[in-house]
């Protein structure tokens, strides 16, 4: 369960920071300044977020519930599909409409 929730948050974060960094140049500049490349920054930050959430949630006592884990796995699949559509749509918009 911890890994699934952490992955949902990491995918949401990657999608959000990718769109935001293109719309808000100072954010992209900050990523470049700190991590040498904006894409490296997004990768490092998403891994750090995933690892942190995984460790915190893994230590949080909760009842192991099959139904809840299944729902979280379904949510993760949806986040991956929607994140893909958002990013692909965003770059299509940036390339042909903006």
């Amino acid at each position, binding site marked *: 369960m911890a*890994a*699934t929730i*952490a*992955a949902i948050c*990491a*995918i949401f974060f*990657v*999608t959000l920071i*990718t769109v935001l960094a293109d719309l808000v140049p100072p954010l992209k500049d900050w990523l470049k300044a700190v991590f*040498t*490349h904006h*894409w*490296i920054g*997004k*990768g490092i930050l*998403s891994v750090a977020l*995933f690892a942190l959430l995984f460790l915190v949630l893994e230590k949080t006592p909760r009842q192991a519930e*099959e*139904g809840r*884990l*299944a729902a979280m*796995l*379904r949510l*993760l*699949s949806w986040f*991956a*599909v929607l*994140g*893909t559509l958002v*990013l*692909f749509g965003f*770059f*299509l918009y*940036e*390339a*042909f409409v903006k």
Partner: protein
Amino acid sequence: MTPLLKFLLAAHVVLGLLGVAAFYAVWMGLLRETSPVKFLKASAIWGVVFLVLSWATGGYYYATYYGAAVRSVIRAGQYSWAHNVFMEAKEHIFLFLPFLGIVLAVTLVALGERIDQKPVLKKELAILAGVLSVLGIFITLAGAVISGAVR
């Protein structure tokens, strides 16, 4: 391009394909009535290893060479959309894959032999493995589009 960069680019492609193939095998294995549990666990773990190595090799090539030498060539040509749409989407959507793979590997290892007694979980894991495989195939095809645009 230096021999090291050529090697890293080739390794990125091969390792990425191996990663996608490993999770495609997990997807197909989970669709079977009786799951080959040992195979599923091994395939998911190897899939994560391949994806992380593909990330590292491709990332080094992308950060040190692509931006300076390849991106400008594509953007100056008639297929600038190959970078502006496909490369931009590919490099970011790729970041989803290791997380999806880790979830599959961790859950399969935790469930072990009990997977066939939990049909709801098994179905959701199969869907997740399918999503990972389809995204992996999309990323592979996007890579082919980008390579074609350089030529």
